[in-house]
């Protein structure tokens, strides 16, 4: 389903990054980074228009020939970004939403760990495994 998932802190620094194909990682990092522009734009305009503040899903941030990039922002301004291969035409918006919700939920579980220092990068193997499961649609 998704080829890449990233968690970005409120200071826009990456907290977690994974992708199915490790060779693509650098390339995808650039894409995620530039998507932050759009996230910021949406967040800034969102406060103006007073849209539903409970809606965390930002929708598609932008699309490329090969990929589509979706965004989600928690109330604490933690950003989740998921990249989907654009040839994958079967995927629906709702599935993306649910992926984000699952990601949010395991992220929340993870940061509840008393040994986790907020703001640190996430290096847990089990977390990685769970994210991968969400990305492949096995979770």
């Amino acid at each position, binding site marked *: 389903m998704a080829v890449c998932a990233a968690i970005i802190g409120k200071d*826009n620094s*990456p907290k977690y990054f994974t992708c199915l194909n490790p060779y693509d990682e*650098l390339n995808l990092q*650039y894409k995620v*980074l*530039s998507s932050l*522009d759009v996230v910021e734009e949406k967040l800034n305009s969102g406060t103006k228009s007073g849209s539903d503040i409970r809606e965390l899903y930002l929708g598609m941030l932008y699309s490329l020939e090969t990929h589509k990039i979706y965004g989600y922002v928690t109330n604490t301004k933690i950003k989740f970004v998921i990249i989907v291969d654009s*040839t994958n035409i079967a995927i629906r918006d709702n599935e993306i939403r649910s992926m984000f919700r699952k990601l949010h939920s395991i992220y929340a579980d993870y940061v509840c760990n008393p040994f986790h220092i907020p703001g640190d990068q996430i290096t847990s193997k089990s977390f990685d495994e769970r994210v991968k499961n969400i990305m492949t649609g096995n979770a």
Partner: protein
Amino acid sequence: MNGTEILENDLFIDRRPIITCAGELEVFSLLEDNLSQALPQDSCEWRRSLGRPVRSVHIGANFAPFSTAALPKPNQWDMIRQPLFHIYWTECVDVDIYKTGIKDEIELWLKELATREIPDWLIVVVENYDGKRANKLLPRTTVLDKIRADFAPKQGDRCISVINPGKVESRSADSWRGLVSRVRHLVLVSYARAVARLEEHVRQQREKRNEVGWNFLQYFKLQEELAQVLEMLGLYDEALVQYDELDALFSQFVINGHTGDAVNWLVNFQKALERWHGLKLGPSHLEDDPSILELRAYIFAKQAHMLLLINKIWEIASRCLPFLHNCTREITLLEVTAPPGAISCWLFLACMEVLQTCEKFNQADQVEAYSLNTAPLWAYASQKLKELGELCGLMPNGTPSSEQLHIVVGLSAGMGDNPGSPGAPSPTDKLKKALCSQEAFNKNYLELAELAMGTYKHIGRLRSARLIGRDLAFFYLLLGETQKAAAFLGDALKTFEQDNWRELAAQTQVDLAECYMKSSDTRKFIRTCAAIASSPYIDTLIRWSYFDDMLKCLDLLEKPLVVPFKDIIKIISVNVRNDGPIMQDCVMEVEAVLDSNFPREILCTKALLSIDHDKEQKKLKDKNCRNVSKEIKPKDISMQRLKIQRHLDYKQDKQLSSASVVCKTTPLKRADSSASPPQSDFTCCLECAKLPLVLTPGLNVIRLSRKATETGKFQLGQLAVHVRELELISSLIIPKVSLEVKREEPTVRLDKGLSPLLLGLEQRMELSVTIGSYEIEKNSTVKLIASRGLSIQHLEDSPLQSSIDIAIEQTQPFSKMVTSIRILADIFSQDQQITINWPWSPKPIPVQLSFTPPLTCGIRLHTVKHRKFVHITLVGKCDMELNVDLPKLNFGEDVKVIDYNVPSSQVIMNDVSISYLWEIQFTPQDEAPPLKGEYKVQYTTQSNKLEDCETRTFQHFFEITDYQTLYHVEAHVEPTKGNEFCRVGAVCQLHLTIRPGSHTLQMNTTNSLMYEVLAEQSLWAVCGRTAGVVSFIPDPEPQTVIMDVMPLNSGYLPLPAIRLSKYIPAEYNVSDKVLKPETHPRLEPFSPGQVYNSSKGQQVHVIAALNDVHIQ
């Protein structure tokens, strides 16, 4: 005009409803132009079925002569292209003529319509008014009434009369307006029915889309017809919906076709591409057998056209990129083969066309919304151009091969010809030109990329702009313009670092390193190498190689190169090793734990830690604070403390006008404007003693030290590690670590022993000199100056002096020198002081000393008649035992003294007294000058502690005045006559005799005396007067006074005391008649030696009374 458009090949597609005309056509032909112009001029409400909103539309019409053949058949779906509405025109005003001919004609016409179930008709009677006829009486019935009665008894609106507007009159305008609106309304009603039928048909056809034989193109044309109708009516947004539906339908077919349900007609779109003519917005037409690109381009052009008409230009741009992505995806899904580069060409052309169109129609107020969408388009176009460049060998690093030249020719041919004006070349022209030569390609590519970057920056998408900058950097690198490349990469690096994307930053450093290596900028290369070598995000092997490169390049450095620590070396902790304040000239020692991220050991030539004096720190406080915040992180502005200031406004006459607080917002500064940390002054710094220092990867503990020469508070500034000419410098150490260097001044003390200081005895005091924290100069001296009467000496054998110089022998820090000082104060002054002068005190230090005498003496004068005795009591006043010898009393040469003392030495101890007695020999005489006596006694100390064994003299001077005996008093108590004994309670007689001395009366002192009997009240009761005055002036004989006294107790009673005083009588002013005392009489006491009471101490024996009665 609505509903018509001119195509490039001059074809008309007229979607206006057709209106047929029957009857007297010559009448109509006069009105035709007017009518067809008037119809679309005003809007009309269009009510639709299915709850769709009412829209107001403009409707036009085509007029055609009525013919039976052209009439549509019942239930025909494409009513749009058939005559929709039918009008019968007549000019007849004569009822008879009507009855004879026209009635039949209309009947025939209506019958034709009725057979085809056409309900939409209208009969128009044109009236021509003449001025003359207007005066006539109205006819009973008109033709119109007749027609109405004959053909439309229930539908009155189907018949209308109109005054010929050819003859301009005010009356005709109203009737004309009525006709136009009637026609408009009726046409719309019938048109609406036709549209509904068309919609229904479209729906039916769409339902059949999965049936065999269904053809998309046919359906496309059908639905497009609907779109065109809507467009004709001015409902552009609804027309757009039709195109959007078609767009989505096609996409769905492609997706379905890919997943398995392939449909036959899709094969038509899977043909290999032969043409890739650029997308052209504006009037377009669809080829008969379109390729997928042509179909897509057509749909998009139509959508764009509609968007343009509803003034949503920016939406064209926003739809463009998804559209292009969709096209490429569909091409891959449909497995359409195309020559390499063809798709890129087409995509590029499409981008450019859209961008050009947007530019043309762009409005100033939409720039923001529009730039938001054009920025990615510019980027996409530049990316496509680059792909083409790579394909055709146009990139700067190569020359096109003949094969690649062939590709260019093929691509150019496929683009077709689409020449623009010379001033504004079409996208096709541009692309062809760009593909012609490397130079043109470079220019075009750079232009596009810069535009994309600029637009991104403009809309605030800095990160996207940086990524394009990164692409540009690589291009410039190929061009050999390393400086430009480095600038772009540097910007990208800053952005990555700001967002803390370490891996990307590290990667960019690698790119930068390559860039600097190419430009052989050694200094920057080293800087970057250091960053790469220490980045954990880079492969170890690569780190090693850059590390080696860095070390190699260090040899080339001529000047020191300052590189901030950043991630290369991290300071884990910094500790001051010294406990408490550091004494001057001690070594301050700091231990720093560094985490080196270099992949291997590195040999450092120096390690320094700067220290800043605290005083300077205070002055630069503001500046430093700013620096500090910059160092830590660019802070959130909203989290910073607001700088609120007082603000007072004064009027011209200097009165206060208003008071307020002002928050001057801190000016926003670019956080990244200063790359290097503020450099401390390393002239004053701690150094690592053990050199060369080897920093191993990971934690290292280094010790830095420095001798503290200056005093004061210091703060650790920055840490620097030098590797030959490479100077790695940390940021300011936070939290601040401070050191305090103190200096202790030398001190001096003068102490006495335990016992108090004594006068007239040589004693010892201790002078202690303590050297402070620093070594003092040799040959320093302490000068002690004693006050008068005090002498001192520190040398054992030298005589005592009033001032001495003591050399300080110990000059080492914290050494102490104690000198014993002998001190002797003469016997006379008890308060003395010693003044200490020495180099470390600007003022002399006075030391107050107070001495006590070792001995005191008391002097008493005793009298026996006229003889005088001096009694001296010597009291020891010190803890020591003193040997006292040779007492002497001397009143000068004239007065002789008889010594009654034993001539031997005596030991006197504390509070022990010794008495001495002398008699003064003198003859009583008139004048008795005061006697000045001098008492001397020799004493030595007995104690062994003090070496002072010298014999010293205690002297005491005194004076005796009024010592001659003037009066001799004698008293005795006798029983009254007849009594043998004095008894208690019985009156006795006190005989008081006062005898003046032989010389007394010559002395011109006083002549009257007052005597007082001072009886103890418990022993004696004095009867009668107790005091009286006697005078010896006329008679110098002794006088005797007898007083009655009564003893109150039995036993040996002391006699009542007698006191004599000089009596000075009151003086009277004799001149006045009345005697007034000027002064009261007064008494003056005698000195002790002047009155001798010989009966003092006498007692009288009183026996008890005879009976007890008296006792009461």
